[in-house]
Each structure stands twice: as structure tokens, then as C-alpha cells.
């Protein structure tokens, strides 16, 4: 286990013990709630993890490098942002997927665009958002999020 994960474990376990001592009921209730959330996406998590193995085995690293690490950064970034906008997978499982692509030679920029729009822009959830907040709000928020996702991605590509 790396130092980051280890320290997260230590902090969380200390907090957990304090929490149990202070209010056992409250603690178990919220654990039940988040396990419920987790149970709903566990199928997708397992699916993605095993899809990663398939991708790494069946798609040669050269192809990944060519398409996601290639010369035309702006185009691949906009495509990344667009794919993120229409995809509906929990961000939780997107990180290992994206991590495996980066390890296989994909460049950072399109990957960041994908990660950011995946969670912030929602074409699938757009009708819901419009119903609750009106067209003007939903459109403004989603367009701005898309634009900023591309900017964040390009900046990260330059810095890292």
C-alpha cells in the first residue's frame, strides 16, 4: 500500500473509532446509507475493472499512443470532453480506467477533459436539470462547464 492510501486509512479509522464512541447509532445509520449507494454501482465497478484488462490486452499500446497521445491535442481534447459529456459512468470507476490509459501512453490533456466533463456536464441528465432550474440556467451551466473543462485540460497538459 502506498503512503497516500495508508495515511487515508489511518485518519479514517481514527475518525471512525471516535465516531463510534460518540454516537454509535448515527455512525451505523450513515454506513448503511453509503453501503446502499455502493451496492448500486458495484456491478459497474467490477465491469469496468475487467474491461481495463481487456483494453490493455486487446488494444496494442501503439494504437492508444497514436490516438490519445497524438499530435492533434486540441482535437483529441474536444473529443475527450464530448465523450465525457455523453457518458454516464460513476466518476469512481473512471479513475482506474483513465489511469490505465495514461499508463499505456495516452496524453494527459484529452484524459483530463474527459474526467472533468464526465462529472460536470450531463447531456443525459439535461432534461432533469432543465425541469428543475429552467432552460437558461441548465444551458449556461453546461456550456460553461464544457468550455472550462477544455481550458483546464489544456492548462494541465502544459503544466504536467
Amino acid at each position, binding site marked *: 500500500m502506498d503512503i497516500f492510501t495508508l495515511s487515508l486509512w489511518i485518519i479514517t479509522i481514527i475518525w471512525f473509532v471516535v465516531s463510534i464512541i460518540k454516537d454509535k447509532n448515527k455512525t451505523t445509520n*450513515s454506513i448503511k446509507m*453509503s453501503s446502499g*449507494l455502493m451496492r448500486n454501482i458495484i456491478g459497474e465497478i*467490477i465491469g469496468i*475493472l475487467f474491461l481495463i484488462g481487456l483494453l490493455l490486452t486487446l488494444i496494442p499500446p501503439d494504437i492508444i499512443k497514436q490516438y490519445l497521445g497524438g499530435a492533434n491535442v486540441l482535437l483529441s481534447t474536444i473529443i475527450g470532453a464530448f465523450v465525457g459529456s455523453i457518458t454516464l459512468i460513476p466518476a469512481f470507476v473512471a479513475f482506474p480506467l483513465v*489511469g490505465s490509459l495514461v499508463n499505456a501512453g495516452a496524453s494527459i490533456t484529452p484524459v483530463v477533459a474527459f474526467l472533468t466533463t464526465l462529472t460536470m456536464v450531463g447531456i443525459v441528465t439535461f432534461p*432533469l436539470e432543465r425541469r428543475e*432550474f429552467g432552460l437558461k440556467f441548465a444551458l449556461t*451551466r453546461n456550456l460553461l462547464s464544457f468550455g*472550462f473543462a477544455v481550458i483546464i485540460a489544456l492548462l494541465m497538459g502544459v503544466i504536467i
Partner: protein
Amino acid sequence: MSTVIKKIKNNMFLTFVIFIYVFLLIFMPDKGIKSFNNSLYYVKEMLTIMPVILLLTSLIEAWVPKKTIENALGEGSGAKGFIFSFLLGSFSAGPIYAAFPVCKMLIKKGASLANIIIILSAWAVIKIPMLANEAKFLGPNFMALRWILTTISIILMAIITSKIVKKEDIPMKDISNKEDDVLSVDENFCIGCGLCTNVAPEHFIMQNKKAKMSTMILKTEESDKIKFAIDKCPAKAIKYI
């Protein structure tokens, strides 16, 4: 038999992946085994981080005083409002659509639109347990840099949006307070966490990963348990209509 079909229907994606594996193991067994071994590394990594993220999410849910935060988001709440909005979004559980009813409720309570944009965006991208997962698979530097850039972007977006969109543009018709209103769970927003079925199993049941009312409850019949469930629902999906 029907439960098997239901399981498959609920897990289409997983079924699809299993199907590819079966196909590979029959026609190209060496590739199938190699894929499986490649995946095992990621499964192992996931297992070291998933329980701690689950625990962390629960602890945040239990101890972060959301009510105090929610009451400090009005117009003219300034930098303090911005920071509180960031905290509220970062410490919440569930996908972004679960934030819609929560934010709608906050608008009704008087929160400014700039703060609402911050909550929605922070809820989407910078949740604390997600940051842990990101650092795990992409490295702490990657996570920290993306966090900084995203935070700056969110503030800019909040300022721009509050110049373009006004409160009058937000539909506000579903406020209802009659005595014969019936309690119901909005399926669009329910994230299926099962909290209400734990708190009041006599009134709520789970069906296809969504909570439903099993009995009819009028506003006048509200009990403490139901009140608690409405209050604690992380998506604010339980309401009278």
C-alpha cells in the same frame, strides 16, 4: 428464473463484459487469461481504497453540519458563502443529479445563484472521497493540480452565470403546502441508498434500485420517522405532491 433476468437487466454492462470474457476463453484462451491477469492488478488496487472511501463517505455524512452550512448561502453572503458552498458540495454523497433537488430547496431558502453553481459543480467534480480515488490511480500531483484549476474555474463560472441567469428564470411552481398532499419519492432523483427503507421500513420499500412508498401517507399523518427520512434523504427526493 425471473430474479436472474432482473439481475442481468440491472447489470447490463457487467453482463456484456462477462460475455466478452466467455467468448475470449473459448476462442482465444491465452488472451482471455492475460486480460484477466491484467485486470487483477486494478481489482487489488480498488480493494485497498474502496472500503476506506465508503467509510469516509459515511463519516462525512454523519458529522458534517450541513444545516449550519445551508443557512449561510443567501444573496450577499460573499466569500463566506462561496467557501460554505464549496464545503457543502465537496462533502455530499451521490451523483450530480442528486444535487438538483437539494439545490432547488436551497434556492427556495434564499441561496444565491452563484452559490448554487458552486454547490452543483463542487458536488460533481471535487468530492473529497473521489479526490482520494483520483490520487490513488493518477497520482497526488495530478489530483492536486486538477483540484486547483477546477476550483478557480468553478468560481469564474459562478460569477459569469450569476450575470447571465436571474432568479426569475428559475421555475418555482412546485411549492405545495396543502393538508391533503400525498408523500411520494421522486424516482428521477432517488439514488437508491436505502436510508428511508432503513429508517421507516413500514412505509418505504426498494424496487429496481429505487425507493417507493408502500403505504399512502398524507401530510397530516406525518410521523417522526417519516420526518427523519424526508430530512435525511441525501437527494431530497421524498416530498409531498
